[in-house]
Each structure stands twice: as structure tokens, then as C-alpha cells.
């Protein structure tokens, strides 16, 4: 490969470059252009311009609520994943190697099953009269109908369910590197272990936590399938609104504006994550 000359080697970059320019960058640019255009919903004629009317329309409570709800649900789901995922990752990292592998497989295999089937399975699970309600009733944690299916709560749960392994794995990877033998040897059981956890284990797990939050929180913002199936046909998240605008209403400019808004929120979240990462002591 070295002796092929620089020109020949650059040819190797062409397939990916060409494909991404044509089918990724140009279309993204197209979205931005469309977001500033207007469309007549009678004739479906598009007039390109530089109006911000689409962006203003986002401030309409109907759509703005969806925006805030998406952010809120993504945040909630991320926190939920963290609350459930961290203890799980910690528990796994503390087991002997053989058990670690088994537990990891148990966590990953559901993730490998078909995404849409998994989400559909949630419908069964959280429906009124379904197994989750039964369990909660038996444990006397809840009484009466569950009422989370086809509601935002159900969607949040659905996102947690689908994305949980994505939170568990990076945290596990961070924790797995810790030499617990040293920590155990240094202190004894009891009050000391809680302090070592707080001052040693937790900070070392932070990089994994950060990665987990990013790969859960950001794609969750743009989820479509989960709110579609668990939301009962209502356009509860940005992904659903966008799809609706494009495939049902036909208002491409407005749909594009929402897509741009989604990307903006994503970018803001990434920047925030970067800032937090830099501030946190490594």
C-alpha cells in the first residue's frame, strides 16, 4: 500500500467520501434549505426563500410542547437508565470473571433481539391488566390501574428498556478496570467501604457514565418507533412530529425546520456534555 503513491491512495477515500457527500451532507443541507421555505398546502408548490415562519411555528404550544416533552423524556430516560444501569454494572464488575461473562450475555442478548419486537413486547407488559400491573399489585407497591401505556410515562419506560444495555456497557468497562483487590486491601468493611466507593470508585466510573449518558440521551431525542408504538398513535416526540409532517401532512418545510431544531438540541446537548467532561476531575 505504501508503494502505491499518494494519488492512488487517495482513491481509497473516494467511495466513502462520494457516498457521504451525495447521500448524507447534501441531503442535510437540503433540510436546512427547506426549513427556510414555504409551501402551499393546496397546490404543494414550494417557494424557496429565507422566511423563519417555520421556526416561529415551532413556538406554537402544540409543537413546542412536543419539543420540551422530547427533551424531558430523553432526560428522564437517561436518568432512569443511570439509576438502574449503574448498580447493575457495578454488581457485574465485582463478580469473578466467569460470572461477569454470563451476566453480560444476559444483559446483551435482549438487545440483540429485534428492536420492534422488543418494543411491541413492552405493550404487553405495561398494559392495564398486564404482568407489570399484576406484579406491582402483588408487591403492594401500586393499586388500581397502571395507566402508563399510551402515555409519556410508558414511553420513558420503553426508552429505558431499549437503551439500558447502552448505559450498562460503558459503565461496566470503566468499572472493570478498577483493581478492587487494592481497594479491598486498603480498607476494611463497614463505613470505610462507603467512603472508598464515593471517593475512588465513583470518580473512576465517571468516564463510562458520561459515555453512557451521551449514547442514550442523544439518540433518544429523535426516537420514532418507541413513541409510535407505546404512544398509541399520538405524536408525542419530535421523531413522530417530523414523520407526520413529511408523510401525512406533506409540509416539508415545516418538517425540515423541526428536524433542524432536533439537530440543534442534539448539538447543544453534546456541547454541554463536553463542557461537563472537561470540568469534571479525571
Amino acid at each position, binding site marked *: 500500500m505504501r508503494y502505491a503513491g499518494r494519488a492512488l491512495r487517495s482513491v481509497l477515500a473516494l467511495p466513502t467520501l462520494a457516498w457521504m457527500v451525495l447521500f448524507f451532507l447534501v441531503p442535510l443541507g437540503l433540510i436546512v434549505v427547506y426549513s427556510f421555505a414555504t409551501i402551499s398546502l393546496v397546490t404543494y408548490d414550494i417557494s424557496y426563500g429565507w422566511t423563519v415562519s417555520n421556526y416561529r411555528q415551532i413556538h406554537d404550544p402544540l409543537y413546542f410542547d412536543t419539543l420540551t416533552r422530547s427533551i424531558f423524556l430523553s432526560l428522564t430516560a437517561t436518568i432512569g437508565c443511570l439509576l438502574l444501569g449503574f448498580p447493575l454494572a457495578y454488581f457485574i464488575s465485582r463478580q469473578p470473571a466467569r460470572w461477569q461473562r454470563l451476566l453480560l450475555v444476559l444483559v446483551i442478548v*435482549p438487545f440483540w433481539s*429485534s428492536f420492534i419486537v422488543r418494543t411491541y413486547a413492552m405493550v404487553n407488559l405495561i398494559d392495564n391488566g398486564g404482568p407489570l400491573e399484576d406484579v406491582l399489585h402483588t408487591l403492594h407497591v401500586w393499586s388500581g390501574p397502571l395507566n402508563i401505556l399510551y402515555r409519556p410515562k410508558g414511553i420513558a419506560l420503553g426508552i429505558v428498556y431499549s437503551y439500558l444495555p447502552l448505559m450498562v456497557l460503558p459503565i461496566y468497562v470503566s468499572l472493570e478496570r478498577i483493581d478492587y483487590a487494592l481497594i479491598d486491601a486498603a480498607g476494611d468493611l463497614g463505613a470505610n467501604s462507603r467512603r472508598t466507593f464515593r471517593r475512588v470508585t465513583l470518580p473512576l466510573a465517571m468516564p463510562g457514565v458520561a459515555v453512557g449518558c451521551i449514547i442514550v440521551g442523544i439518540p433518544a431525542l429523535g426516537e*420514532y418507533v418507541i413513541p409510535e408504538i407505546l404512544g398509541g398513535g399520538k405524536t408525542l416526540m419530535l421523531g413522530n412530529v417530523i414523520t407526520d409532517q413529511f408523510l401525512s401532512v406533506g409540509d416539508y418545510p415545516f418538517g425540515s425546520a423541526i428536524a433542524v431544531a432536533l439537530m440543534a438540541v442534539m448539538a447543544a446537548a453534546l456541547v454541554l456534555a463536553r463542557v461537563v467532561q472537561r470540568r469534571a476531575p479525571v
Partner: protein
Amino acid sequence: MRLRRHWFSGLIALAVIVFLWAPLVIVAINSVNSDTLLVSWKGFTTHWYSQAAHNGTVQSGVKQTMTIALGSTAISLVLAVTGALWWRRASPRARRTFDGLTYLRIMLPEVVFAVALFLLFSKIQFPLGTTAVVIGHVVWNSAYATLIIQARVATLDPALEDAASDLGANPWRVFRRVTLPGLLPGIVAAGLLAFTFSFDDVVTSYFLTGAGTAPLPVVLLSMIRFRITPEINAIGMLVMLFTVSMFAIGFIAVTQMGRGARKALALPEVRQ
């Protein structure tokens, strides 16, 4: 298993694992449940499986999904191999741009990809359908394939290619006889992963199928949306088994890759 010391996290771990598996178990049970309304257990039956197998939409859905998955995997692999080999000798700045492009494609919600391509195709009046879906899949699928193959390329010993060249092989022959065999585990792993991602995909396929034959996940989506028939559970089980086994093989390939890489780099023993 150390349970006593970590009983708190162990409890949560147990609850979470049950939580992860419960829905799948329910689907499995319901796929053989005679009760049409799925309210209670009414006896074992394979009726739903035979109904699913004979469902025309499902059959064409599977065929269509296979076609799309094979196409998008093949193209994604070509992009991944060429990209990763270029990256090896590229300048730091070029590498950063390439990596940024790769990570952007992994992070961006699929809905944005789908919508963007939908706009492009409608603008240039490119017909929606199988080709459009394949094009769409490749855009994000190639990113995952690229990451895997880049990792594999990093384990290649440049001295091997020097040796091949020294022994008379021109660059193409070096690639075919030395580089490609070295990359093979990575290609297998990336290929299986890409195939499964494509097979399982909903959003891009939904947008870019248009009026053509719907791939299986889109078929499932309509079935779920418009009626609850227990048939879905049977199809779901079959699809799950398929994707799990594909992923499993890919996973084994990736872990074997680690072992193979260590062997390939095995430095000569110092002591006899």
C-alpha cells in the same frame, strides 16, 4: 457469585435482568397461546406460527428484508475497507475529518437521515423503493462497519506488507494476498453486524420504501399499529431468534478477532 457483600446492587441487578427478559418471555408464551385475545392462557398451539408462515405479506417482507440487508451490507463493507485502509496512511487532519463524519453518522437520530434522503429523492425525482432503502441504510450502516474494520486494521503488522512487497507483490497483490486475509475476521464481524442492523431497521425503511414491497420490520409496524393479532408474537419470536443468532455469530467473530490478532502479532519467542 459474591452476593452477600453487594446485596443492594445485586437486588437491583436481578430486578433489571428480569425486567429485560420479561417482555421477551411474554412474547414467547403468547406466540403459542391459543387465546386470540391474549387475556389468559388457553392452551398450547402452533397455529400462529403456521399462520405467520403462510402470510403473503410476511413472506415477501422477509424476502425484501433479506435483499436490502445483503445489498446494504455488501456496499457498507466496501466503504468500510477502503475507508479504513485510506485512514491508515492519512494525515492527522484528514483523519479527524473522517472520524468526525463517522461519529456524526452514529449519533444522529435515524429520523433525520431518513427525512433528508426523502427530500433529496423527491427533489431529484429518484424513485423510492428497494434501491432507495439500500442507499439510506448504507449511509449509517457503513459507520459501524468502518469502526470495526478500523479496529482490525490497527492490528495489522505493516512489516507483513513490507515483506510481501519485498518478495515481488505489487500493491494490488499485497492487498489480495496479505491485507485482505488479515482483515477477514473484521470483515466477517462487521458484515454480520451490518446485516443485522439492516435487517432490523424500521425508520429508514419506512420512509424510503414508498409504495414498494415493505420489508419485514415495516410490515410488523403496520400490523402492530392497526390490529393486535397474536400472529405478531409468532413472527416476533422467529425474527428474534434470527437476529439473536446473527448477532451471536458476529459477537463470537469479534472476540475471536481479538485472539487472532494476538496470534498474528505473536512476536518470535525469545526462549526456545
